[in-house]
């Protein structure tokens, strides 16, 4: 069964304190790994797609990396506006759906 886990469940950072979020996955064939940001009361907002091990994507203070078993979302010098829940999802080769992890709730304190 396809499975996605994320750690930590919640993370509190001081403004400027860099850290990483982890997404571990078990799938029979990876079609792509996707990172989303979700603000309270809103739908998830697409951030990155990674397709193969070794691939990296960057956007402002965020950088996503991918290995054969996991992905990391690195946050450099975060600001309070980076506070949100970060979700990762995987697409598999045999289905059209995406399997989501439970998310990491990030709080960045000023």
């Amino acid at each position: 069964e396809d499975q996605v886990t994320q750690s930590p469940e919640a993370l509190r950072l001081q403004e400027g304190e860099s850290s990483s979020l982890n997404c571990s996955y078990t799938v029979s064939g990876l079609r792509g790994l996707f990172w989303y940001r979700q603000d309270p009361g809103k739908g998830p907002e697409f951030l990155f797609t990674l397709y193969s091990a070794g691939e990296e994507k960057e956007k402002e203070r965020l950088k996503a990396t991918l290995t054969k078993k996991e992905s990391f979302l690195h946050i450099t010098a975060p600001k309070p506006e980076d506070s949100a829940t970060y979700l990762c999802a995987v697409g598999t080769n045999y289905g059209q759906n995406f399997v989501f992890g439970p998310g990491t709730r990030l709080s960045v304190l000023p």
Partner: protein
Amino acid sequence: DAGVTQSPTHLIKTRGQQVTLRCSPKSGHDTVSWYQQALGQGPQFIFQYYEEEERQRGNFPDRFSGHQFPNYSSELNVNALLLGDSALYLCASSSGTNSPLHFGNGTRLTVT
């Protein structure tokens, strides 16, 4: 360029009732997927529609049904509502098999 729009934004229903949620996809997208998100959890796949047909279904009972119209908009119907159906229902649209999902802001359904 309008993104994914969902209606209504909030809904309160009584156990046993039926509900219909609506979704208009992002311009240029032909595929619509529905997800259920319980509080504090990640979205769970309900089903996906493409060319007006259900292409794939997640582990949800037959009480959950849907429809896609020729203009690609979609409806999610839930019959015989249970308290456990209370959740945020998200619609997502996409184009192409491996393209990312673009989500609406969801419909918050409360069953009392």
